[in-house]
């Protein structure tokens, strides 16, 4: 039995070893490709990290992050509130659903990037136009998921509520909203990812600060190290937001049957 001990220990370390091996391989590949490329195409990781250091200490990166994520936060917050409200209303009010669902379906089908130049012409540059773009990217997944969830409440549970003479307001509070919350959170997880795409895209077009316009400036100046550093920061933000989204989703699905 003692012979099995090291094996068990190895097994519990295995996922970690896997990550470490992957990381080492990635870093090595980056470094090697960088060393063997022309510097306006690709630079080694070490060069990228020193660029990142300069961007941070010079205040460029903190400024761009603050600018980007204030747009992102505002857009996401408004999209989640509006998506949840519209989704619940359309699910519970068949008349509204018949009237407005075709518009939503059509809008959801449009690639959002195609709307950005149009928005630019319509509302110009600045903070709010970019918030609108993030909103457009994030609203639909929330609305869609919320509505689909709220429409799938079992008729038996609604009968239970009715048999206890639950008022419409109390039915929302005790049945419709708690039931829909996990679906809403699935929409939120998707919206957090799509909103990030919207944020960068908006800053490409409506450039006035932020990570997207920093990327454009760096590419115009052939600052490959800076570009890679900025991309690294955006990737990191994406990874963190995905993890946060999944955590939130899990937290609200606690009561669901899990095995």
């Amino acid at each position: 039995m003692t012979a099995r001990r090291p094996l068990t220990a190895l097994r519990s370390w295995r996922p970690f070893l896997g990550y470490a091996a992957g990381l080492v391989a990635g870093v090595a590949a980056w470094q090697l490709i960088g060393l063997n490329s022309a510097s306006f195409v690709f630079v080694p990781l070490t060069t990228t990290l020193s660029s990142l250091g300069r961007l941070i200490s010079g205040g460029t990166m903190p400024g761009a992050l603050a600018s980007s994520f204030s747009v992102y936060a505002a857009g996401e917050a408004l999209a989640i509130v509006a998506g949840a409200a519209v989704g619940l209303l359309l699910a519970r009010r068949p008349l509204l659903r018949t009237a407005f669902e075709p518009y939503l379906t059509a809008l959801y089908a449009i690639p959002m990037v195609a709307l950005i130049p149009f928005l630019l012409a319509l509302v110009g540059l600045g903070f709010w136009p970019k918030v609108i773009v993030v909103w457009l990217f994030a609203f639909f997944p929330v609305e869609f998921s919320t509505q689909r969830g709220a429409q799938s409440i079992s008729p038996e549970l609604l009968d239970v509520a009715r048999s206890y003479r639950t008022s419409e307001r109390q039915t929302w509070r005790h049945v419709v909203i708690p039931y829909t919350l996990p679906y809403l959170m699935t929409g939120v997880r998707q919206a957090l990812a799509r909103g990030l795409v919207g944020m960068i895209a908006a800053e490409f077009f409506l450039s006035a600060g932020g990570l997207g316009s920093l990327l454009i400036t760096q590419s115009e100046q052939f600052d490959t190290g800076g570009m890679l550093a900025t991309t690294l920061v955006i990737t990191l933000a994406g990874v963190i937001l995905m993890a946060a989204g999944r955590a939130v989703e899990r937290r609200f699905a606690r009561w669901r049957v899990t095995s």
Partner: protein
Amino acid sequence: MTQPADAPLIRVEKVTKKYGPRTVLSGVSFDVGPHEIVSVVGPSGCGKTTLLRCVAGLTEPSGGTVSIGGQTVTKPPEGVGVVFQHFGLFPWKTVSGNVAYGLTVRGTPRAAVTARVRDLIAMVGLEGFERSYPHQLSGGMQQRAGLARALAIEPRVLVMDEPFASLDAQTRDLLQLEMLRILDQRPAATLFVTHSIDEAVLMGDRIVVLTGHPGSVHDVVDVGIPRPRGREAADSDRFRIVRDYLWTVVMKGQGNDNSPGKPSEGTAD
């Protein structure tokens, strides 16, 4: 309008229910006394659930009336507890939250709710599971919670739709007897829907036999076994007589020459 104390509490009069062109229930009439348990038995699809939904005010009859305490039922009335076939517990609420539901939506003060929920959880034997979520409980325990929720509003009418049908045999036997004990302690006009003949006889003071297509009352049988009843009720001669009669009626259909005669009243014990 006041009612004499022993007048039927639930009156079902010539109830007909149509879904589109299909008649599901046709001219169903019977009544239930204030302390009486009436079993409704019939094959699957004969309209038992539909009938129960009419009594609970969850759907309106196409013809005829249901009245409770002299009031015609058009929407879920006050004081009617419903126990659902698939328990109908809210999966996002704990056992306590589910049992408290009827009181909470009525606006009962919190302290009163807490005390009452504690009593009911003890009554159905769920102590220690107050904070569990339904999916963490066995089917039997879920239905105990469903029962406690229905009893929490101190119902004068209790309607149950095959409440033990999805439980294993042993749990079902146990819950049947516990249900009888509870209804002895705090009686209610009870409509007990089942597709099991044995269960109908064990639980009911009277039995309404439904036949299908469209669902109509084929017979109303007096069980004639006194309450309180225990396990020994199922071993009595009377139990066998009533059960055999029902089997003949339900399984062989009406008009069979070999069928035993309808058990008359007073042949009990």
